[in-house]
């Protein structure tokens, strides 16, 4: 996987908790293997019944049509396991989601697609939210994986270089910076895996009955 060290760009705000993956990418965009998921991002609220853009929705407005960072409230990505929610964000151009908490499956899916899922404390969320709300022209930020900070990168802004921390497990940070492929990493333990399977098959033969794995196939 390609390496990621930082994300630069405008931060868009969707100030809601429990944003579910059905909202991030509705099932109607999942009917083929080749749908333009970036187009489908938040499709349920981004388009009206005729497929026209809803002008009031944040990602339909400039400069947020090119947002690189998304700020949201607690429990982002709950619900369905669909990894297409992460693909939709990435294909739209979002490189980082900042939220006080993430749902478990979404969080795992994010790292496997180089989407930075940064956990911020509630005070940081409130401060960033206020900033984004009061700068309707859009504010550019830099998310830096080396320092685990998000900072105002707009040189013309009086808050230039003001920064906040976010959390991400160190191992995940390093893996993302190196661009590790997780399957390659796991296959370093290939021998352990086959030994484990052999051992399990002999200790718990009932778990791998002949009808499933035996010569009967």
């Amino acid at each position, binding site marked *: 996987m390609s390496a990621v060290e930082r994300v630069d760009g405008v931060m868009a705000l969707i100030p809601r908790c*429990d944003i579910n993956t059905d909202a991030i990418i509705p099932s109607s965009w999942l009917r083929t293997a080749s749908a333009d998921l970036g187009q489908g991002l938040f499709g349920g609220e981004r388009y009206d019944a005729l497929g026209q853009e809803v002008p009031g929705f944040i990602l339909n407005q400039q400069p947020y049509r090119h947002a690189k960072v998304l700020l949201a409230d607690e*429990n982002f990505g709950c*619900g369905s396991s669909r*990894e297409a929610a992460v693909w939709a964000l990435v294909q739209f151009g979002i490189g980082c989601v900042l939220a006080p908490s993430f749902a478990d499956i979404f969080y795992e899916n994010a790292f496997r697609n180089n989407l930075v899922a940064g956990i911020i404390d509630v005070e940081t969320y409130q401060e960033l939210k206020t900033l984004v709300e009061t700068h309707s022209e859009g504010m550019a930020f830099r998310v830096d994986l080396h320092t685990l900070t998000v900072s105002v990168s707009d040189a013309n802004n009086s808050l230039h270089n003001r920064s906040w921390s976010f959390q991400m*497990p160190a191992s995940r940070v390093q893996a993302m910076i190196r661009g590790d492929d997780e399957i390659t990493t*796991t296959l370093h333990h290939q021998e352990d895996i086959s030994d484990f399977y052999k051992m399990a098959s002999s200790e718990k033969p009932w778990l791998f009955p002949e009808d499933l794995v035996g010569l009967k196939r």
Partner: protein
Amino acid sequence: MSETHAKPAQTLFDKIWNAHLIRHLDDGRDLVFVDRHVLQETTCAQAFRKLRASGRTVLYPDLTIATQDHIVSTKPGRTEDSNPTGRELMQLMRSNAMSSGIRHYGVDHPSQGIVHVIAPELGLALPGSLLACGDSHTSTVGGLGCLGIGVGTSEVEHVLATQTLALSKPKSMRIVYHGTLQAGLTAKDLILHTIGQIGVAGGRGYAVEYAGPVIEALGVEARLTLCNMSIELGARLGFIAPDEQVLTYLQGREFSPKGNAFTQACAYWRQLRSDTGAVFDKEVQIDCSLISHQVSWGTTPEDVVSVDGIVPDPATVEEPARRERLTQAITYMDLQAGQKLAGLPINVAFIGSCTNSRLSDLKLAAELVRGRHVASDVRALVVPGSMSVKREAEALGLDVIFRDAGFEWRDAGCSMCVSINEDVVPPGARCIATTNRNFENRQGPKSRTHIASPAVVAVAALNGCIPDSAMIQPEAERSR
């Protein structure tokens, strides 16, 4: 045995996890062996594509099975061509499975059905085993004491290539149900009530063991229903210690161990319980005596009340973000704060999904429907969870009861729960469903969903509105 040699008390979760631990990884995660892997057609195409692109193959194809369920048509007698939109994903999985040597349960197979219905039915999910599937409701098999974990597509690829998952070990939570569950209430009411109590994020980061006398008294299919909605608590894993009932359920199933192996397995399964004194990171107590028939009013599964209850008033909520969310939910659902749920007219009634589409669910609904008719202007559907369930129901004549009452009697699939096939609730219409999610647009653009038990949904279909609890009684009791 002297106390110094006594093993520390372990949770059931620890026991099963440790039995699958290949090694601790340097990054703090655990590499665990996946005994069974189940594929569904909407989350595996990309996994196979990437597997091929990286020149890898499926490591142990015997341990993976595939079933078409999400995008399949549920029209009786359907084929892979009945829903042309879904053909691409169905054919992709079929050809990927065939070229990799993976068993495939397509719409033409007599055992086809929803992953979480057929995994127990076929004896693929076994107590003490670990099963992964690219679907968040995989915890359903926890009803048998199996650790079922829902994964994303990259993890599907990881399992195909390595038969393992690299996971951060979740913390443990036990939810203990005590008191007496009122007659006529179901596992669905238990889990909806639980989600209402601890919220959609209350189980995040935890593996949940459901326990207590009320759980022990549940039938196997009811346990599957309960564990199914663990993800609606935010938990990836939810399970119940297996008992004799589970062992009996598993006997003779296609991939269950047979003969001596079954006896050996039973000896192992009987030890699968949390030790007395085992410490959980979190414990929750639920008094079941206080629970009545549940129905969701809003747009997350924690928005539940008794069918005799009212829509909450956001003005009484202090926290601004939550107040805002409730307000938005009330608007989306076209309701008023303080409005009674009972009497609210519905347009569609759906009985099905991995939560509530098993024989016991259909029997319960049929008992309430027998000899009566669906209200005019209501579209009512029953979609059995598997073709096996469908055949068993037909052998009992349930199809006749449903058809005579005006229900559609369909072939197996996820249908109007995920609405990724052609079974969609029209914009603005109100559907009461035995499903697991009531998110905005879940059942189709601008659809409105109320989730409830098969009993509540069946009676709603007959009356054309959400019933109150007095209306939810079988014919025999009503005429008394």
